[in-house]
């Protein structure tokens, strides 16, 4: 009876080992010195190394791609604290640099891996070996990465004005509101410029709408060329623009506005065989105590812009308060 029993047990054990061998998950056993003791078919197939070739070899000698310091840090926690450690592909795409399981149709060059490190042989409370479990998560990772790229692109598109590449009105106003709160909170100086193309209707009527679009694009290009990286520029309406100059007084903003005004005045727009010139009028409002929200800030800049229009156009005005 006992022999039957043990042979049954042996068969069971054998079947179980067969399952582990064929499991499509990487299994590696390491000793306290990080020498490889065991590994399954998955590891053999993907690395191309037979178990006898790697047995008692230092893990880091066989897989030079492993960041030794990082891995030791994780594994030492498992050895010393007798807890599991998990790492995700978001931390490091892989532990072992294996080829993508789908080398032809898969878009990833390598296999993304999630890894679990478990304590083994801890019967006396001392962890003498650890097990590494390697999961292939390439599909999940690739999907996540592609989704993020698409979302980022959608976000960019939803914020951008297509013709000019500047921020659109909605997003720009959001930025203005943020800058208003920031500048108020930290009591910093900040200026807003609003401007538009003089007699834009005339440009459209005389040269046609596509030429008008060329002028709108030309204005945006001039704005982008003259602004600093930290400034926030948007297309506010048809031929209206707005720009927030961070950490800038009205006086400094005026220098910028004049430079922009001259730049546009001197530029020539070419559309097909038509060439023409045009001008812009600008209004500046520095953030002051009297302004209590970003809408009022815009009203102030708009008021200054109106003054420029009244004053004969192609000029810059600064808001002087109510």
């Amino acid at each position, binding site marked *: 009876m006992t022999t039957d029993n043990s042979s049954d047990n042996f068969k069971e054990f054998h079947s179980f080992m067969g399952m582990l061998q064929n499991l499509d998950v990487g299994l590696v056993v390491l000793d306290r010195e990080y020498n490889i003791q065991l590994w399954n078919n998955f590891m053999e197939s993907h690395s191309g190394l037979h178990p006898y070739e790697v047995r008692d070899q230092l893990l880091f000698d066989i897989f030079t791609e492993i960041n030794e310091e990082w891995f030791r840090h994780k594994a030492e926690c498992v050895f*010393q604290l007798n807890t*599991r450690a998990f*790492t*995700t592909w978001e931390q490091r795409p892989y532990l072992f640099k294996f080829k993508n399981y789908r080398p032809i149709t898969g878009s990833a060059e390598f296999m993304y891996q999630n890894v679990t490190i478990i304590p083994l042989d801890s019967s006396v409370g001392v962890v003498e070996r650890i097990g590494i479990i390697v999961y292939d998560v390439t599909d999940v990772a690739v999907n996540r990465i592609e989704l993020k790229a698409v979302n980022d692109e959608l976000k960019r598109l939803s914020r951008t004005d297509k013709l000019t590449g500047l921020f659109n009105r909605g997003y720009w106003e959001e930025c203005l509101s943020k800058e208003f709160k920031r500048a108020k909170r930290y009591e910093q100086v900040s200026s807003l410029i609003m401007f538009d193309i003089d007699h834009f209707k005339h440009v459209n009527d005389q040269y046609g709408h596509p030429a008008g679009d060329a002028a709108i694009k030309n204005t945006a290009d001039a704005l982008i060329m003259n602004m600093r990286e930290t400034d926030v520029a948007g297309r506010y309406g048809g031929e209206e623009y707005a720009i927030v100059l961070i950490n800038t007084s009205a006086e400094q903003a005026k220098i910028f506005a004049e430079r922009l005004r001259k730049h546009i005045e001197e530029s020539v727009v070419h559309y097909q065989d038509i060439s023409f010139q045009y001008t812009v009028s600008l209004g500046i409002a520095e953030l002051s105590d009297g302004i209590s929200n970003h809408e009022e800030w815009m009203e102030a800049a708009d008021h200054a812009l109106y003054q420029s229009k009244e004053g004969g156009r192609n000029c810059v005005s600064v808001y002087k308060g109510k």
Partner: protein
Amino acid sequence: MNQTVTVSITEDQRDCYQEISNVAMGQAADLLARLLDVKVILPIPVVNLIEVNELRMALSGIENTESVSGVCQGFIGNGISGEALLIFNDTSFADISSLLKYGGITDSSLELELLMDVANILIGACLRGVGEQLDVGFSQGHPVVLGQHVNLTDLIKAKNYRWTKTLAIEINYKIEGYDINCDLLLLFTEDAIGVLNEKVNYLLED
């Protein structure tokens, strides 16, 4: 068809959950202290039976407006299932990076490494602590990064709540001498509460 089951816990049961959490959290804190070589201030765990959509309220240790990062990990054993959530206040990272023993590694992903390290230890040890006391061995799923540098509401928004009630155990860890604030939340599903109550009643009988 959805069967409406009224789940509840008595005061005695609540005290018992709190005691179990106390022991488990102490074990976890001890490991964290050994990993980082610091003194961990032990809080009093908060046990609550809440509606899942009130999850936000269970995170009393984290301020609403702050930017946070979080990891969650599912667990299951003996018919008891749930999720562990670890949420870090982002201001903690500056302080905790000084505690790290990574030496030469100065990746931008350092914060993620830290988040995972602390999650591994706190979640693993807490679950083991709870499991030992209730005589349940928990299997843990792979941890998932919920989000980094997002506001709390975005982090824990779930679109599809299949459970209306959850048993939530909140443990707010602080580290002495550092501006580090992290919230560990153990959430048990509605159908696990019955099993848990039975186990706890057994303990209460002694």
